[in-house]
């Protein structure tokens, strides 16, 4: 057997099974969704095999079949989902960056324990944790009781079923996603470089801007992307903490499949989210490539 053949066989042996798995269970369903998004909804769910572009027309704002009445309600929901996901990224970054810095400077034993604590929520069901937030945020919940007890507010504040509650909930859920890549790049940070910067005349702020931030940028970008993508498509957090008031694109897709039984329209919406994610990933890939070259 030649060396080239042996290498090929090794490659097939190592990557064959996962490739087949992904082809059948990931790429296959995706292809089905793509085809469904171009079909007509069946009367009792399912699809009729009549090709149509109306699903995409509806997303763009024309709900009628003749493209006359323009009402971009779905685009608005999509833009609002982008906004909520972006705000989730910003707030988890604000929480995780200082925390990662702090934890990376702990002594080793304590550090491992702190990282374990960050990942601890994974061990408890997401639904249970989200309903815990309902108990905290509702008008008679801990937060409002506390605020009223301290005399900071006379009447309970509407926390639950607002954008705030959804961003808070998603930040809480995605903190480990943001934390781990950030921690990876902050831990590698060379303390001597920070001292060198200070030695060469830089204030703390200048050192942060010119040395620490550029050195940890890969972690920031990585953590942001890995948080943004699931936040954009999330439907559990907005349905528990946002109620009927805060609708995100994920809820819309869920409704189309489960309540409205309009599979083609749900598929078209899913394609919209998919393409947004793809654009983001391509942008990140390009950025990383540019960084590697310079």
């Amino acid at each position, binding site marked *: 057997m030649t060396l080239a053949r042996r290498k090929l066989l090794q490659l097939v042996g190592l990557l064959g099974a996962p490739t087949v798995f992904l082809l059948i269970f990931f790429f296959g369903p995706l292809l089905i969704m793509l085809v469904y998004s171009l079909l007509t909804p069946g009367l009792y769910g399912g699809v009729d095999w009549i090709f149509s572009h109306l699903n995409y027309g509806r997303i763009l704002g024309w709900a009628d079949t003749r493209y006359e009445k323009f009402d971009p309600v779905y685009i608005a929901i999509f833009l609002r989902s982008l906004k909520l996901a972006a705000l989730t990224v910003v707030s988890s970054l604000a929480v995780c960056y200082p925390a990662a810095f702090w934890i990376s400077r702990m*002594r080793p034993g304590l550090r491992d324990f702190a990282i374990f604590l960050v990942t601890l929520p994974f061990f408890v069901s997401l639904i249970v944790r989200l309903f815990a937030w309902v108990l905290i945020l509702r008008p008679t919940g801990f937060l409002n009781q506390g605020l009223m007890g301290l005399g900071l507010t006379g009447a309970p504040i509407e926390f639950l079923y607002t954008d705030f509650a959804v961003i808070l909930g998603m930040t809480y859920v995605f903190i480990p996603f943001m934390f781990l890549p950030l921690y990876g790049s902050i831990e590698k940070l*060379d303390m*001597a*470089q920070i*001292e*060198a*910067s*200070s*030695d*060469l*005349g*830089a*204030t703390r702020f*200048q050192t942060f801007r*010119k*040395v620490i931030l*550029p*050195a940890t940028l890969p972690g920031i970008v990585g953590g942001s992307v890995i948080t943004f993508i699931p936040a954009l498509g999330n439907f559990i957090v907005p349905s528990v903490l946002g109620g009927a008031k805060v609708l995100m694109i994920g809820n819309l897709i869920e409704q189309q499949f489960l309540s409205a039984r309009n599979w083609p329209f749900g598929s078209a919406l899913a394609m919209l989210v998919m393409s947004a994610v793809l654009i983001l990933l391509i942008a990140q890939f390009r950025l990383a490539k540019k960084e590697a070259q310079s």
Partner: protein
Amino acid sequence: MMPFDTFPAGVFPAGMQDHTPMPSPLEIIDARKSFRTPEGGTMTALDGISLKLASAEFVTLLGPSGCGKTTLLRTISGFETLDAGEVLIDGAAVTQMPAHRRPVNTVFQRYALFGHMSVARNVGYALEIAGRDKREIRARVGEMLELVGLAGMEQRAIQQLSGGQQQRVALARALAAKPKLLLLDEPLSALDKNLRQKMQQELKALQRELGIGFIFVTHDQEEALTMSDRIAVLAHGQIQQIGAPTELYQTPANLFTADFLGESNLLPVSVTGGRACLTDGQSFAAAHATGAATLLLRPEALSITPPEGHALSFTGTLRETYYTGTDHQITLETPAHGTLHALLRSGAALPGLGSEMTLHAPAQGLHLIDETLP
């Protein structure tokens, strides 16, 4: 000082008309610093250190690890604050000044170059921070790279450089802002032997050329002897001795310095009436107060052929020989004085291992250390 206008024009009291004396580039007065250890105790890193540079000298802080030399360097650069004492740079007290405002720069042990910046941005960093003009920065960076022998390497990435080149970039970066004092924290320890020797010579030449003070930290006594104008030997947070390399080598003040710098044979003597007496009865003239002391015999002071005049002799069994090309390093086991180390010129006729031989040392100009051996 009285204001000048109280004196008639051109008439100054004696001592005032001559130029004001140049301030010392660095003065440390009674520096003290202790750390809390993780076990809850305290560790004294600096125990009353005073040091003054007379001029733009090359001063080496030499000592074993944990002696306080790095802490001392970090109090000069501003990364550690003193519990007590003063640090003056160019005559101005900087004890409370944060690191980024001090007019000194450091070459770090592992260089600490900024990996995400080009060579040019690394070297120009201090000037960029100071908000200097771009053209000025470019000119200065070129000048600095030329100085350290890396002309034309501006656009290289740090990762593309060899260890020796990174060392030079670190040096150029630290010198770009024209510091009044350059601090070097074991900068050569990561280089291989040949490169290290080359850099030693270059650093020394660079210091003479720039005319600024260098404070060099090392635990390598050979490095200290080759490069320094003066060496400060540190142990237990105190300066054991400070002086020129030859002074420290030939006339160490205490057992620690004698033992730490170079190889040494230390023999107990008792002095009475200007004569020092070895334990085996041999004696020689010594200008030392009556009492117990220690004789320092460097390995190269011993020879096979007896020197002219009065000499000390040591007979014993030859235990080990190492041939280095220029010399034989030998170990002699004597019944009266224990193990002696000697350095004999290559070509000396050595008997076989295990045979008896006698070594001699001239009995004049021998150095006695006040301390007695434990």
